[in-house]
Each structure stands twice: as structure tokens, then as C-alpha cells.
């Protein structure tokens, strides 16, 4: 009797302590994720013997470092120009996002604001050499914009039906524009329209964030439960005019490349 009474008073404390320990462990594993990712990046660099051989240590000299970056960016553009489909060039130094086909820039947008990830900022020069010397393949993309706004219509049976159903041209449905591109090497680029003018835009933004960060949160929980290492996705967020964002997203094929310059 006495034992059960004692247990009754201790039980909530024990449960609370267990919950606390689990929460702390989860938060610690999540906060360690950037270090794990960095370690993974460093390992991939130093296991690439060809890369190490081609990397001239003189690039690290303060007088050369900027020139080296410029050269890698241009090498990347040159490689991109060999493809005859549409690709994207993100230049955060010039604050521009461009579309390019066969080496010709066909669309250029000035961006007012962007947020760079700390991990990308802290890349060593050899890491930059490894990851940014070549165009990066877009491995997956998600957006609130429809890529091809297809409207299905059945053929009319006769001229009378055709005249009754005469299609009235209308501007295409202009959804709020938010897009996310996952690149190889696990770098994510998020594009957001730079103005939120109404509740529809606000709702679309919330839904977009819920999808992106909700998926990420679920993944961290699943990794924690399965005792796996937490994943960290270095992300660049770019804010740009809504019309340009629509044009860029619709222009890019599902399999396309991105040249990225951020330093």
C-alpha cells in the first residue's frame, strides 16, 4: 500500500525525466547535424585523389583566392554552355539569377535579398573547388507554381457545340510563387517571391514552409528513432520578383543544372 502510494508520487517525476532526457538527446543530435555534414563533405573531398592532385595549394594565397574562384565559376559556365537545354546561373556576388542556353544568357533577374547558410560560408577553398567547379544537377524540385498549366478539352461533336464552347482566352492562373531546388551534394536553394501582398500569398508561403520544414522535421524524428545520424541541408534562400520566379521555374526542365557562385 505504502509502496504504491510512493510510486504514485514518483511516477510523474520519472515520466517527466524520461521525456526531458529524450528531448535533450534529440536536440543534441539535431544540433550536431551541421558538424556531421561538414565531416561528410570533408571526407568526400579528401577521398577524391584526382581533386587533391589538381588542387594547387597556391590558390590559397590571399592574392590568388579571388582569381581562383572567378576561374572556377567560368569553368562551370563553360561546362554549362555545352548543354543545349535551359539551365540556371545563381550569382550571389552580382546578386543575379539567370537562365542560360548554350552559353547565351536569355533571362536575368536582379535579386534584392538572400540568405546564405553558415556551413556553405565556412567551406574551405578545396571544398569550394570540389563542389562549385562544375554545374550542380537539380535532383528534385518542389514549388507552388504549376510547371505546365495544362487545360484538357474534349473535341466538340459539331460546329454548334464548338461555337458554344468557344474558348475564351484568359491569363493563366497566377499562383503565388515559392520553389525549392535540391541540388547534388545536398545543397538546397529556396526561392521565395519578394512581396507578400495578400492572404493568399501568406497562406501559400505557410503551406510551402510547412511542406519543406515539416518534411525535414519528420526526417529528424525518424532518424532519431532509428538511431541514425541527423542530416543537415545547407540552404540558400533567395527572394525575387514573382513574375521572374514563375518564368525561371517554368523554363527549367526537370533535369537541369545550376551554376552557383556565392563567395
Amino acid at each position, binding site marked *: 500500500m505504502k509502496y504504491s502510494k510512493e510510486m504514485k508520487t514518483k511516477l510523474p517525476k520519472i515520466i517527466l525525466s524520461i521525456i*526531458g532526457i529524450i*528531448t*535533450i538527446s534529440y*536536440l543534441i543530435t*539535431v*544540433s550536431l547535424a*551541421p*558538424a556531421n555534414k*561538414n565531416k561528410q563533405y570533408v571526407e568526400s573531398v579528401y577521398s577524391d585523389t584526382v581533386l587533391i592532385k589538381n588542387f*594547387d595549394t*597556391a590558390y*590559397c*594565397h*590571399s*592574392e*590568388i*583566392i579571388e*582569381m*581562383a574562384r*572567378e*576561374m572556377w565559376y*567560368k*569553368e562551370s*559556365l*563553360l561546362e554549362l*554552355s555545352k548543354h*543545349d*537545354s*535551359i539551365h540556371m546561373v545563381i550569382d550571389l556576388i552580382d546578386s543575379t539569377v539567370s*537562365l542560360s*542556353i548554350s*552559353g*547565351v544568357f*536569355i*533571362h536575368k533577374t536582379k535579386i534584392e535579398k538572400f540568405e546564405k547558410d*553558415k556551413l556553405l560560408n*565556412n*567551406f*574551405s577553398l578545396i571544398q569550394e573547388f570540389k563542389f562549385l567547379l562544375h554545374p550542380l544537377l537539380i535532383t528534385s524540385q518542389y514549388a507552388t507554381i504549376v510547371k*505546365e498549366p*495544362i*487545360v*484538357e*478539352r*474534349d*473535341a466538340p*461533336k*459539331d460546329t454548334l457545340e*464548338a461555337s458554344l464552347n468557344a*474558348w475564351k*482566352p*484568359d*491569363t*493563366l492562373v497566377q499562383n503565388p510563387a515559392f520553389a525549392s531546388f535540391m541540388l547534388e551534394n545536398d545543397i538546397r536553394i529556396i526561392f521565395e517571391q519578394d512581396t507578400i501582398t495578400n492572404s493568399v500569398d501568406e497562406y501559400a508561403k505557410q503551406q510551402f514552409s510547412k511542406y519543406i520544414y515539416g518534411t525535414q522535421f519528420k526526417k529528424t524524428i525518424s532518424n532519431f528513432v532509428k538511431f541514425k545520424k541527423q542530416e543537415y541541408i545547407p540552404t540558400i534562400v533567395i527572394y525575387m520578383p514573382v*513574375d521572374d520566379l*514563375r*518564368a525561371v521555374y*517554368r*523554363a527549367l*526542365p526537370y533535369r537541369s543544372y545550376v551554376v552557383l557562385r556565392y563567395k
Partner: protein
Amino acid sequence: MKKEYLRYIKELSGKIVSLFTDCSKMHLLTIVKFIYPIVIGLCLVFLIPYAMKIIVWKSIELKSEIAFDNEEAVNATKQKIESRIAAIDKKLNSKKPKAFYLVINSASNEFNLYKGDKLIKSDKCSTGSYVLLKNGDNQEWMFKTPKGVFQIRGKTTSPVWKKPDWAFVEEGLPVPSVNHNSRFEYGVLGDYALSLGDGYMIHGTLYQRFLGLPVTHGCIRLNDENLKLVYNSLQTGSKVFIY
């Protein structure tokens, strides 16, 4: 009256003070008992991961670039990089068309006519409607403007439109034979047409009020003035970029 009022205030404040002191005496221990673990718990939950985060980011932070003092090697590398950049620039510049070329934005239904780096004209146009026309289960046509790099394959004045099958299906008419008279329409494509291959063209329109809207069957429509300019500027082989 004033004295009574003052006495009343004094009594009331005395009661409040005594209530608080009694309360604190009685419940101080209980409050501490409750608050203490909560404060400690919150500290553990937020401070430990926060401290970890700071430590982790500190450990990742970029170490200063390695010192490299070999001046000869630095100069050699500098020269090597400069010549490589010049070579790449040359290659990239050679990819840009020097003559006239056209860029079509099918999302905003606008075109830009360039000569080299110079923008000559920018205005509205019309591109594919993205309508998928279905004729039963057997036939379907997608009215979209293709994207990519194209070349002008041919130029014609006073073009005649040879209506394809879908033009009849869309109007609810029976499809005639391949060279039937009803297939040929005069004057609907404007004064000029420039072929991009596969049946896609840049041409004029009778429906100029629809310019700027996605209404075509895949071709690119311009107004009369712009069509004339584009026709006179682009030659066979000129590039057209559509995105």
C-alpha cells in the same frame, strides 16, 4: 470622514500585507518545489543544445587560409589563372550570337529582339495555350510552344496556312483529305512567317487583342509592326531562344 477613510485604507493594506506574508510562509516551500525543477528542466532542454550548437559551429568555422610564401609559385599560378580566364572568356563570347537573335519568354508572353548584346525591341507576343485537345481516346494534341534553341528554317511573305487536322477537330468539322481546298486559308498569318521547323512558326495574327496572352496552338504570334521588324532582322539560320 477623511480620518475614517485613511483608517480604512490602512486596515486594508495591513490585511493585504499579512495575507501575502502568510501565503509566502505557507506556500514558499511548495512554490520553490515546483518552480525549481521547471527552471532546471528548461535550462537543460534549451541551454545544453544551444551550447552544443555554438560549439559545433565554432568547430566548423573556417580556419584562416594556409600561408603560402613561395612568391615565384604564386606569380606562376597567377599567370596561369589569368590566361585560363582569358581563354574561357573567349570561348564563352564565341557562343553569343553577333547578329540578330530573338528571345521569347513564354511565361510572360514577351519577346526581346537583340543584336549582339544590344536590345533592339521588347514587346508582347502570344505563345502556346497549354490546351490538351482530346478527340476520343485515339487522338490528342498539346498546344504548347516548345522551349530551347531554334533556328530560322525559312522565311515567307503572304503566308498561306495549311490547316492541320486539329484545326478541323477543334471546330467540330470533319477532317478533309490532305490537300483539300478547305485546308488552305489566306491572310490569317499576317504578312510574314518565319519557320522554326516541325510546323512551328513566328507569324502575325488577326486577333491582336489577345497579344500578351497564351492563346496559340504552339506558334508565336506578333503584331504587324513587330512581325515586320523581326522578319527584316532575322535571317535563315538566326537563333531563336524560347523559355
